[in-house]
């Protein structure tokens, strides 16, 4: 009996040591899981031996582990969850303004270069191209400046989080302080590379092509009807 108790006690004690000494969240979770399992076995053992006092003590410990376990699960702490969500929202803004800056920069470059390198060719082209080049040269630089400003302002929370991590002088660091902002920025790249986005794009393309086909068929049908109604 003592031997069985000591075997389970060893696993439980190891779990406690691991939870106390580990730095990464995953290690803590595993440590508690090990302790939890060992304590459950111990509780069963005490119950079969009729040791109610010991059983009650171990059951209490299992409840404590459960509470710690729940507290460490992603999204359990409302402050942490709110912080992660804020970073995700701000990450979308950063990515949005960053993309707008790149597009505006490219448009400004294309507009100005088209007008400067081929001024005569551009004047001879169709009005829509000429107008497009002029609009790009007129407004894209201003849009670029505004987008760059907004990009930097929206990046400030991330910069502050990195600065906080770099400046921290406490020994026990909170990994979420660094991980949350980094994950927050991944939201849009992951979505755009994900299956959902590909499905959405192909759905839109399929619907658009089907609508075009329908339009061509209907137009062709009416055109044919008109031709038949008016014989030469």
């Amino acid at each position, binding site marked *: 009996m003592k*031997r*069985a108790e000591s*075997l*389970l006690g*060893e*696993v439980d004690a*190891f779990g406690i*040591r*691991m939870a*106390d*000494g*580990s*730095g*990464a969240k*995953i290690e803590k979770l*595993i*440590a508690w899981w*090990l302790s939890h*399992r060992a304590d459950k*076995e111990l509780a069963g053992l005490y119950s079969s031996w009729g040791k109610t006092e010991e059983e009650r003590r171990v059951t209490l410990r299992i409840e404590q582990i459960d509470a710690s376990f729940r507290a460490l699960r992603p999204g359990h702490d409302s402050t942490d969850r709110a912080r992660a969500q804020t970073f995700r929202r701000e*990450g979308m803004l*950063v*990515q949005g303004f*960053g993309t707008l*800056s790149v597009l505006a*920069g490219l448009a*400004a470059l294309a*507009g*100005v270069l*088209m*007008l*400067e390198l081929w*001024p005569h060719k551009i004047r001879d082209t169709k009005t829509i191209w000429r107008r497009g*080049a*002029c609009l790009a*040269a*007129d407004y894209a*630089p201003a849009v*670029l*400046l505004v987008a*760059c*400003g907004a*990009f*930097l302002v929206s*990046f*400030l929370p*991330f*910069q502050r989080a*990195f600065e906080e*991590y*770099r*400046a921290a002088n406490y*020994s*026990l*660091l909170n990994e979420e302080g*660094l991980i949350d902002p*980094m994950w927050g*920025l*991944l939201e849009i790249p*992951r979505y755009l590379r994900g299956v959902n986005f590909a499905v959405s794009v192909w759905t839109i393309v399929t619907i658009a092509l089907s609508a075009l086909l329908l339009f061509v068929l209907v137009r062709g049908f009416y055109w044919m009807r008109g031709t038949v109604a008016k014989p030469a």
Partner: protein
Amino acid sequence: MSVSIQANSTAARLARWLLGCAVRHWPEETRPWGLALAAEIDETASAFETVRWSLGGIMLFTRSVLSGAWKWMKLPAGSSLSDGVNRPKGPSLLPKRSRVFTTVVLGAAALLLALPEGREAILTVRASWQEYQQSDSDARKLEGLADRAEKEKDASTLAFVALSTGDPKRAEALTERAVELDPQLVWIYGSKNRSWPNFDSPKAEWLAQLQASDPDNAVAYLLAADALDPLRIRPFYRRGIPKDAEFEVAESDSKWMALMERAYGAPRYDSYFQRHYQLTRTVWNREKNLSPAIVFSGLRSHAIPSLANLYLFADVKYTRHRRRERRGT
């Protein structure tokens, strides 16, 4: 005397040639002035006067060019100075904003992005599109950092590069160099997963040194147990809950069992993650231009003992306990 005349005449020839070049490129609007200057140069009495005349002409040419450039800058993109004379009647076919406006606005945007905050934002966003995987420029940056650290005998930066680089051979060399310079950094022997996201445990001799320097720490034994043959453990769990026979297979590996026993009995558990975190923080604080991809990938590849091994050993213990229970001992 004859040498001086020769020199003077060479200078005069050079002055004439320079003015000739200037006249060839003289802006259209003030070209008559340039032509007049060039015509008058032959009227100068001495070589000195020729040089002075030529210099005056070149000054006038420079002012003329600058004034032309400023006028050109004040026009919208795509238009030229000659357009003012020959512009067709009708609606404007050119942008509304001047080149000065466009240049100033583009310059301001470039300045914003060139600020340290702007560079950090660009680096971070670029890294996020690569899912914080190290790019070639990150690898070059790390190499530069390692070279500088090697020159300065900076063990902690060498350790940081060793833990962050994606090149396993380079990581090995840098790890050994860092520990050689500062034996306190022996913990990095047990901190690098050499083939993240797969598991590749640290070298056996490193783990032996780690066990010797940190004998109370369970992690050194756990990593050594993982190194025995990590793939042997996983199939047990891949097929669902392992059976007693499989636990007996694990139990029969005396070396693995001994290491796991020592790990479970060790008074401390420290996977050195906090030290890795602190080291990263210190180096990043010194090197603010480091890409977050370097920081993140380094932390992500930190070695953590195999969780399957931990489960398996706990399961082996429970099986022993149940076996004893069945026997009633």
